[in-house]
């Protein structure tokens, strides 16, 4: 363990003295501090804060993922290229100790930079929520709204339709049922998040409708007429719900002239948001998941660095990073390949073979990167959705322990097999 700690300390010292930490820290500070000045939104403090939450964490993760991959590739490949590894290999070290030490050191660097970014995001959000033009009560209200994260409760599956999906014609009414027995104790308010598309699709003006909410104990919990814009996510405030088993939400389509039917086509288009935690605690869980993702990217970079020279390793690992950031594209290629219609008669055999090769390759990548889709803080934080501790724990177990351990075994095996003293190196 002492040898691993020695190698880890060397990796940290290398990151500090090669000024990697300083450069990345300055980049993080510059990006996060300049963000509210670059992206304005509609000028209200609420929109400023929302935009800041939406972009800052994504940018932070992008910068740190790039750094983690690049440093991971350099930690092994550069040392082989500059012959330091030649001397290190002659010392009484096992290859897994070198690998684990470097990984541990780089993860410490990631942790420090992530903590800096997280603290900065937190500070900046509090700063954007305290505008001089707002009174104290307004500020508190804004803080309560922005600095609260919610647990999304989907509606129960209705007969003949999947959960949440609905089509409501002019003058018609549709009712969703939510099981809130486990969530409502002590919640001061809730939000109904919804988004719909109109028919005809060309209708882009707000669509009028009445929203009603009721529980067994509160039959007249809410009745509100609202003109909501199509294709935009909107929120409806629901007053304090006393502990109850079921909440019924009803929507009556009042748009008769012109007649517009509203569709809730996806199961994610309507959900009840119940306050669950503070933004800061959620950000902490998001940072933990972010840290585990960085551990994965660092290991991936190190694997590339063990197999290839530094430029090739950087190219390969950045390619993987690009794929990780475009999960949908990878899944599409894994499912369909390059050909949109492979059954077409004019497609040559070579194109078929190439298509299958692409599909097989991308299935492998999709499999390799699948945990990244599952443990993605960006799927939660911008929408102010609650990140459970269990998800952070699972992410830690999978991305920070299991994957790096597997990659460590592969990397250490490759390092052991690789001839470090070749004349070309």
């Amino acid at each position, binding site marked *: 363990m002492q040898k691993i700690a020695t190698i880890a300390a*060397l990796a940290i*010292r290398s990151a500090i*003295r090669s000024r990697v930490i300083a450069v990345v820290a300055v980049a993080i500070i510059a990006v996060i501090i300049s963000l509210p000045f670059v992206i304005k939104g509609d000028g209200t403090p609420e929109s400023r804060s929302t935009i800041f939450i939406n972009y800052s964490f994504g940018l932070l993760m992008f910068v740190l993922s790039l750094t983690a991959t690049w440093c991971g590739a350099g930690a092994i490949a550069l040392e082989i290229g500059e012959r330091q590894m030649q*001397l290190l*290999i*002659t010392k*009484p070290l096992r290859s897994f100790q070198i690998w684990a030490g470097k990984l541990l050191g780089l993860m410490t660097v990631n942790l420090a930079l992530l903590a800096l970014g997280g603290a900065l995001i937190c500070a900046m959000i509090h700063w954007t929520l305290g505008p001089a033009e707002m009174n104290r009560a307004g500020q508190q209200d804004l803080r309560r709204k922005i600095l609260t994260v919610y647990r999304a409760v989907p509606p129960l599956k209705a007969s003949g339709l999947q959960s949440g999906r609905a089509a409501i014609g002019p003058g018609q009414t549709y009712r969703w049922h939510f099981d809130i027995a486990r969530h409502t104790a002590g919640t001061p308010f809730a939000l109904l998040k919804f988004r719909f598309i109109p028919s005809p699709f060309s209708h882009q003006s707000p669509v009028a409708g009445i929203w009603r909410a009721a529980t067994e104990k509160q039959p007249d919990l809410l009745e509100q007429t609202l003109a909501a814009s199509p294709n935009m996510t909107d929120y409806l405030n629901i007053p304090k719900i006393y502990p109850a088993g079921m909440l019924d939400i009803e929507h009556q389509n009042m748009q008769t002239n012109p007649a517009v039917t509203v569709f809730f086509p996806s199961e994610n288009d309507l959900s009840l948001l119940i306050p669950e935690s503070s933004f800061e605690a959620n950000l902490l869980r998001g940072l933990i998941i972010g840290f585990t993702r960085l551990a994965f990217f660092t290991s991936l970079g190190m694997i590339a660095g063990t197999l290839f020279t530094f430029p090739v390793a950087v190219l390969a690992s950045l390619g993987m990073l690009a794929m990780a950031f475009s999960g949908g594209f990878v899944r599409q290629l894994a499912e369909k390949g390059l050909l949109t219609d492979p059954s077409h008669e004019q497609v040559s055999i070579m194109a078929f073979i190439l298509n299958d090769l692409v599909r097989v390759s991308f299935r492998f990548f999709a499999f390799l990167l699948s945990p990244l889709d599952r443990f993605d803080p960006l799927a939660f934080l911008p929408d102010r959705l609650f990140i459970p501790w269990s998800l952070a724990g699972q992410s830690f177990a999978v991305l920070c322990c299991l994957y790096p351990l597997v990659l460590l075994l592969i990397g250490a095996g490759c390092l052991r097999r690789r001839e*470090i003293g070749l004349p070309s190196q």
Partner: protein
Amino acid sequence: MSKLQNQELSTIEPVIIADGLTKVFRDFWHRPIVSAVKAVRFEVHAGEIFGLLGPNGSGKSTTLRMILGLLKPTAGVLRVFGKEPQDVHSKSKIGYLPEESCLYPFLTARETLTFYGSLFNLDSSILNERVKQLLEMTGLEHAATRRIGEFSKGMLRRIGLAQALINDPDLIILDEPTSGLDPVGCRQIKDLILTLAGRGKTVLISSHLLADVESVCKRVIIMNNGNIIVQGRLNELLENEAIYRFCVSSASAEQIQAIQSFLRLQTGTDPRTDHPRKTLEQFFLETVARAQPGTTTPSGVAYAEKVAPFLAGKSPKDEKTQCKK
């Protein structure tokens, strides 16, 4: 090699055994491109100062790298301390000075020695003492806090040598140890090698500087084109048994003439008479030694006379040293 000497060596356990050692470099498609080492066979015994000589491309660096576990033999047997070269326990008994600097440029001299020493699980007090002694021995005490990236070539060789000795190794492998060093540094290294050999350490030297090898090595192999072309004790290889040399001091011209006449009469050949010359190295060292006292502190290396006490086996503390793993 005489029969007696062969018997002497055979009783000592070999530190390195190479038998049929072969290395073929292959290209990306695994096609052989060059046979760097061709079925060589040699042994290096404990306490020996062994020289590995040969022109560029003769295979000596490849052989060294195989001994260090940096390259894998294509064929043949290679054992270091009776084990595979990659064995961690064997590596804990080896010190290696590479031909080029392989050190981390962002570390200071002291940090470098502490880092490499930590890899041997040395007790911190022993490690600190050794770092101090080695910095003193290599004349880098005043540059201890300077980064390696700022060092001159000579300073790099010195700190490289210091890291190779931090674990008080049983086998010291030196690749071009005197390259880049001034004559004083060369002499120090040669003295150090002799001191280490005197303590039963095995030293394997690969060098182009034949005078350096000649002055310290007891046995050498000369490689060419991947093969060993000569192997044996240096004295036997260099000795010309057909010629004798007599050394006389304080003789007058008449006495010399009389001796020459006598030898001419006895052998029938014309004896050659001359005055022995100092080597240039010897002359340089004496000159520098005379100039050294009272000179200003140099910017690079301060000349140190003594071998680090722990390497000379003088430090009782170091006897307690044990590698935990």
